[in-house]
C-alpha cells in the first residue's frame, strides 16, 4: 500500500509533497529553530534527498487530519553530533527500529512524527517516512531542539517514551521499556555510547488522539516558511534576520561578535553535556553592550548587560547577520558575528511539568523561569 493509499483511506485531501527545494528550505528552517543544537544538517538533507530522488514521495499531513486511532512514532537519532557527521547511517537503522517496535507492540506504525525541530531530526524522519511509504505528521515534540529523550511536549502531556528502539549500522537493536522516562533516556544514551556515539531511534508510540493533545503543531510548515524566506533574502539581499523575527514571532535583542568561548569540560564528565558560555561584544546599535549566552548543547540562557533576557524552553537563536545561517554550539568560533533573536516557546512547552523537565532549573541554573515576553 502506498502512502497515497493510506491518506486516501484516511480521507485526507490536503497534503504537501516535499521536493528537493522544499527539503533544502525545511532543513535550513529547522536548523534555525534548533537553537544552536540539532547537529549538522548536511547529513539529514542529503539522505532525504536520495530518498526523494528514488521517487519515494515524502508526504506531509496536518496533525488535525491524523486519525484518532492511528499510531505514530518518532524517528531520528540521539547522541554526539560529531559522530553523526563522521559516521553517517546506512539508512536501514531506523527501519530496523521500526520493525522491532512493530514486533514489540504487535501493531503497525502508520505515520512518522519528528521528535524535534533540528537540522538532522527534521529531515531524517521525513527520509524514513518516504523510505517506508507512510506520511509525516506536520508537527514535533519541541518546536526547537533539546538533547534528551524525555524533553518533549509528548512526555509533558502524558506520552511515555517507552518503548523506544535504538539501533546501530550493524543491526544491533536495543528496546528501552521503562516506566520512568528518565530511565528510558539513560538506556538509549548508553546504547549510543556502546554504538560509538550515536543511537538511531524510533519510538514514543502515540495514537492520533494523544498526538493532537501533545504535539507542537505545524512546526515543519514553519521551518519550511522560514527556510523559504531566508533563501529568498539571500537572493534579493534583504535582511534575513528581520524576516526570521517576523515569521517566528520573536524579538531581535542583540547583534555582536563572539569574543570568548569558555567551555566547561568538567560538566561533560558529570552530565554528558557540552557546556559553556559565550561572550559577545555588541556591534552597531548594540555597541558598548555585552551579551553572555550559556549553553548545554543548545543555547539555554541569555544575559545582556547584566539582565536575563531569555531562559529555556524559550528559544535563543544566534544567526549569521548576513546569511541568516544558524550558528551552532558545535561549530561556534571566536570572531563569528551574529544577531541574537529570542522567541517564546510554544505554550505546550510552558506547562508546569514542562518547566520542570526542560526549564532553567533542570539545566542547573538557579533561576525561576520567566516567559521571554516579560524579559525583553
Amino acid at each position, binding site marked *: 500500500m502506498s502512502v497515497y493509499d493510506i491518506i486516501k483511506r484516511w480521507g485526507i485531501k490536503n497534503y504537501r509533497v516535499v521536493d528537493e527545494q522544499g527539503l533544502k528550505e525545511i532543513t535550513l528552517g529547522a536548523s534555525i529553530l534548533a537553537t544552536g543544537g540539532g547537529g549538522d544538517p548536511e547529513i539529514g538533507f542529503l539522505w532525504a534527498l536520495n530518498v526523494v530522488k528514488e521517487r519515494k514521495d515524502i508526504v506531509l499531513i496536518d496533525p488535525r487530519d491524523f486519525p484518532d486511532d492511528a499510531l505514530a512514532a518518532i524517528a531520528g537519532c540521539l*547522541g*554526539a553530533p*560529531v*559522530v553523526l557527521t*563522521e559516521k553517517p547511517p546506512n539508512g536501514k537503522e531506523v527501519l530496523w527500529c521500526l520493525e522491532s517496535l512493530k514486533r514489540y507492540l504487535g501493531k503497525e506504525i502508520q505515520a512518522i512524527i519528528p521528535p524535534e525541530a533540528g537540522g538532522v531530526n527534521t529531515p531524517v524522519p521525513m527520509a524514513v517516512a518516504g523510505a517506508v511509504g507512510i506520511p509525516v505528521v506536520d508537527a514535533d515534540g519541541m518546536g526547537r531542539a533539546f538533547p534528551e529523550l524525555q524533553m518533549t511536549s509528548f512526555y509533558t502531556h502524558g506520552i511515555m517514551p517507552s518503548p523506544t528502539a535504538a539501533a546501530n549500522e550493524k543491526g544491533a537493536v536495543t528496546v528501552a521499556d521503562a516506566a520512568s522516562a528518565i530511565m528510558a533516556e539513560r538506556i538509549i544514551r548508553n546504547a549510543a555510547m556502546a554504538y*560509538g556515539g550515536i543511537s538511531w531511534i524510533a519510538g514514543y508510540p502515540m495514537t492520533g488522539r494523544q498526538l493532537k493533545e501533545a504535539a507542537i503543531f505545524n512546526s515543519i510548515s514553519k521551518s519550511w516558511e522560514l527556510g523559504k524566506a531566508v533563501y529568498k533574502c539571500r537572493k534579493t539581499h534583504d535582511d534575513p534576520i528581520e524576516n526570521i523575527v517576523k515569521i517566528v514571532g520573536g524579538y531581535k535583542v542583540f547583534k555582536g561578535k563572539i569574543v570568548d568561548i569558555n567551555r566547561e569540560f568538567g560538566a*561533560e564528565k558529570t*552530565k*554528558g553535556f557540552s557546556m559553556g558560555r559565550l561572550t559577545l561584544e555588541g556591534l552597531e546599535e548594540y555597541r558598548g553592550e555585552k551579551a553572555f549566552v550559556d549553553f548545554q548543547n543548545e543555547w539555554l540562557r541569555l544575559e545582556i548587560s547584566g539582565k536575563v533576557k531569555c531562559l529555556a524552553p524559550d528559544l535563543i537563536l544566534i544567526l549569521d547577520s548576513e546569511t541568516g545561517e544558524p550558528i551552532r554550539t558545535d561549530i561556534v568560533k571566536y570572531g563569528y558575528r551574529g544577531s541574537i533573536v529570542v522567541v517564546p516557546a510554544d505554550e505546550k512547552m510552558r506547562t508546569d511539568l514542562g518547566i520542570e523537565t526542560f526549564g532553567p532549573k533542570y539545566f542547573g541554573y538557579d533561576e525561576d523561569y520567566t516567559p521571554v515576553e516579560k524579559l525583553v
Partner: protein
Amino acid sequence: MAKDVRIGFDVGGTFTDGVMLRGKEVLAKAKALTTDDVTTGIINALDVLLRTKKAEVSEISLVSLGTTHTTNAIIERKNLNKVGIFRLGAPATTAIPPLTGWPEDLKAAIGGAENIFIVRGGKEYDGRDVVPLDEEAIRSACAKIKGKVDSIAITGVFSPMIPDQEERTAEIIREELGDIPITLSNHIASISLLERENSTILNASVITVMRRAVEALKKAAKERGIEAPLFIVQNDGTVMSADYAVNYPIFTVASGPAASVRGAVYLSGIDNGVVVDIGGTSTDVAYIVNGFPRESSITVTIGGVKTNIRCPDLMSIALGGGTIVKTKGNEVIAHGPESVGYNLVRLGKSFGGPIITTHDIAVARGILDKKLDIFDTDFAPHIDKVKALDKDLVEAAYKMIKNTLEVAVDQMKTVAGNVKAIFVGGGALVVPRENLEGISEVVMPPHFEVCGAIGTTIAEIGAYAEGVADLEIEDRDAAINKVIEKAKDEAEKAGAIRDTVEVLDVEEIPFAYMPGKREKIRIRVKGKIFE
C-alpha cells in the same frame, strides 16, 4: 656570489605577474598574458624577468608561485583525472554514497559513479573498528578499475584520528595497481566525512594537472640555468614545496588571492584591514587578521562541490579594468559582469575601440593618469575618444563603480566603523579611491601592481594537524604537545626548518552529547624555509 634572489609569480585571470627580489628590494617586474595552459604564461613572465639581467641566474635561491592550475581545471572540468573512489565505512554511511550532490558534468569528468567502492571498514571515535577492513573487497575493486582510473581517493570513517585503515588500503592498492597517485583523506581535511571525502576526491582529480605544471616549470627553470627550489602558495598564504604540492593540489585553490593578501601585508606593513585586489576581470576582497587572510567559517564550495578545506574568506566581484559599462544613449544601464579582459587594448575607448570600460571611466574622471611600467601600452593613446564621453554618463558610471566597491568592502568587514584598505593589483588605479564609505584610508604601497607575485616570495611554510584526546586518561598539555609535534612533522615534510616552526593556533573542540572528557585538538603552525 650570494644566492639571495627570489622570484615569484602570481597567475590572474588576465595577466600573470612576475617579480624578482633581493631582500626587500624589487629588482624587476613583469607582466605576461595568462595562457590557457597557465604554465606558458608563467614561463613567459620568467623570461621577461631574466631578460632584464638584474641578477644572475646562479643568484636565484627560490622560485615561488600562486597559481590557478587547480581551480581552472575543476571549474572548467578540464584535464581531470578519472578517480577510483574508496570509502572505508560500510555497513555504516551507505545512505549517502560518494559524489552525492555533485554537479553531473563534474561527476562525469572524473569517471562517474562506476569507480565508487564503499568497503567494509572504518573506525569508531574511540579507536575500535566499525568492522575489520575488508581487504579482499579492495583487491577485487582494484581488478575492476585497473587501467580505468588515473588516481585514487581513500576516505575512512574517523581517519583524521585513526589513519591506519586508510594507510593499509593504500598499501594494498599499490600492490595491486603499482605506482598510482593516491590521496588519503586524513592528509586533506578534518572531521566531517562527506565534505572531507569531496575534498579528497577533488584533490585526486587534479594531481596530474599539478604534476604536469610542476614538471614543466622545473624543466623551464633548469633550461634557463636556475637551480633553486620551487614553492607554491597554499590557501592560507603560506607556501609548500612543489614536490609536496603535487600530492596536495587542492590546497592551492585559493593560492592567488592568498598570495596577494600576504603581499599586501608585506608591502604596506598593515596587519589588520581589507585587501582589495583589482585585476582585469574581477576584484577580490579579503580581510587580514594579524597578517594572514581571515579564514572562511562556512563550507567552501569548489566547482559546485562542498568541501571542508581551509580557505581564505574571499569575496570576488565582477569589477576589473576591462569590465564593460553598458549604456543606452547617455544613460548607464549596468556595469559588468562581462569584461573585455586582455582585449581592453583593442576594444576599450581609450585605445580607440568601441566599448566603454572601467578603465575608460577612470581616464575620463582623471583618476587614471599614468602608465604603469609593467604594461606595454600607454594608458590612453586615444584620450580624445574618452574626452568625448558625456559628462553625466561618466559621473553615473563612476558612482556605480564606487558603490560596487563600497558594498563589497562593507560585506567583508567584521567591525563597524572605518577600516584601512590596501588597494593592489594591475587595476588598482582604475577604481575610485577617494571618499569611500566605510574606508578610513586607501593605501597603495609601492609595487602594488605586482603585489600577489611579491606575496609568493615571503616564503613561510604552513601546516596543521589534528588529534583526539581523552582528558580523563591523558594530560591536557601532553595531548596538545603531541598534536603540535605532529603539525611540526607536517611542516617539515612541506619544506620548513623544524626549529623555526611556531604555533599559530590551538583549537580544542569537545565531543558534545557524550559523557567523558574527549576533545578534538587542532593545531596550525608556520615555519621558515630559510634561517
